[in-house]
């Protein structure tokens, strides 16, 4: 159903998987979303979800080693923003387990809440992953503002 929605506007970017770029990634998606005049709340929700996914690429996907993150954002008809965040890192063995609240393989200062936060701050979350190949996270969020087509 989601795929049948017409794309009205879109952008793609590829960026080095470095932690310094986390703020750039969420700001870039935020600036694209801002074209739709979202509420402050909608914008922070989206930026938080993007920040979670991008951080996961860096921390888990590439284990803080060099790599690239691919972001594909689209505004679909019906004021729906769809953001895909992809890495070509280690992938996830058991996706449903990884998505459980508080589950983390990192320990230390990670809380295991990234997927839970993505889920609660967006309208849909889809995770596709293959060990050794990488991970794609697809988020969608409906924006209540008016978008220029």
């Amino acid at each position, binding site marked *: 159903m989601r795929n049948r929605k017409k794309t009205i506007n879109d952008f793609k970017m590829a960026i080095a998987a470095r*932690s310094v770029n*986390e*703020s750039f990634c969420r700001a870039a998606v935020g600036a694209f979303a801002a074209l739709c005049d979202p509420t402050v709340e909608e914008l*922070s929700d989206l930026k938080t979800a993007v*920040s979670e996914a991008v951080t996961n690429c860096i921390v888990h996907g590439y284990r803080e080693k060099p790599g690239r993150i691919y972001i594909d954002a689209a505004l679909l008809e019906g004021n729906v923003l769809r953001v895909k965040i992809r890495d070509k890192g280690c992938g996830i063995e058991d996706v449903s387990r990884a998505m459980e*609240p508080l589950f983390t393989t990192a320990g230390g*200062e990670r*809380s295991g809440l990234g997927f*839970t*936060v993505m889920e609660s701050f967006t309208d849909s979350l889809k995770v596709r992953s293959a060990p050794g190949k990488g991970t794609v996270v697809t988020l969608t969020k409906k924006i209540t503002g008016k978008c220029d087509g």
Partner: protein
Amino acid sequence: MTITQENGSMTARLTGEIDHHTAAYLRHAIDASFVRIRPDRLILDFSGVTFMDSSGVGLALGRYRQTRAAGGTLVLTGLSDRDRRMMQLSGMQNKEGIEFR
């Protein structure tokens, strides 16, 4: 971030954006002062924070473990409603030795 101390309390006033990148610096700065001051109470003041993701939750949980190990209390204050909700997804509000203000 600014760090102050008073009557056995240490307060870290966090500012700007907290993500995985900035949390590393904040953690080091807070921990360096913590071992020097040895406070009974560590107060993390989030009122100057403009953005936070789950790295902020990890930062608080890490400081909680540290204050607990030293027999002290962690106080979280100045959180926006959404950031407080994010913190509480971890269940930390039900733990001994942690206060939300």
